[in-house]
């Protein structure tokens, strides 16, 4: 993942939300999430986000199935 990448939150209360990666600090990342007209900075564990690129392998099986579902939903 690189700064500026779109990332998908795969765990936690914002699961399924897309945000922009702003900073990586060890095991934590900060992402910018759009809430209406506002942007909110969210600090979260690095393994609770995944890059929105097809090459990225997710950490768990459930993440893979969730991402596939989200992608298929958004394709329709």
């Amino acid at each position, binding site marked *: 993942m690189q700064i500026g990448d779109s990332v998908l939150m*795969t*765990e*936690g*209360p*914002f*699961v*399924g939300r897309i945000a922009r990666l*702003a*900073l990586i600090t060890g095991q934590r990342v*900060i992402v*910018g999430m759009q*809430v*209406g007209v*506002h942007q*909110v*900075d*969210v*600090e*979260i*564990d690095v393994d*609770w986000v995944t890059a929105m690129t097809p090459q990225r392998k997710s950490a*768990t*099986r*459930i993440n893979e*199935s*969730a991402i596939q*579902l*989200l992608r298929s*939903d958004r394709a329709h």
Partner: protein
Amino acid sequence: MAEDSSQRVRIWQFRRAPEEYKLLFPEGKDHDWLVHAADSEFRLIGPSLLAWGRVHPVKSITLADGSTILWGAPREAAASLAKLGQIIEKPPSGAERRAAARVRIECPIKYQTLSEPKRAGEGHSIDISTSGICFTSESLLPAGAKITVCMRWPVGLEDGVPVELHAVGTLVRAEPMRAAMEIDETKFLMTT
């Protein structure tokens, strides 16, 4: 991006959260989540977080500085269903009470085994607990196989957004038209 970390919304898996926050929620378990949000951020994101309270337990505590700590327990969603479905197995008394409640409730599901030969199909739930799901299947599934089940949850968020339970686990019982899985991982996803 806010330089001051107090202006960020901070999210942790419960077991990784600061101890002083964990102590506020003695019912918290390792896989639950905790969120800390300053007052200004909580006004923006609070409603969407509290909306999960229709699906699984969510609690919030306002701290002396005006910030808010929220706790959520997605794994306890099955226990929250007790008011909608028929409880078919009463939870035992004691520490494991929350983990054992089993509720009869019929919701559409899709399933797919994760090992070869892969089997996929649709059906509906028969009953659900925090540790397992019993469901109808289109064929005899291989007992012992890893399986993923997506279940349309009977309760949506406050604004009508439907949610779906995604569960990964192991088939512990298989009959020609029904199967039961033990859950290893779960998560809820908004389906719109």
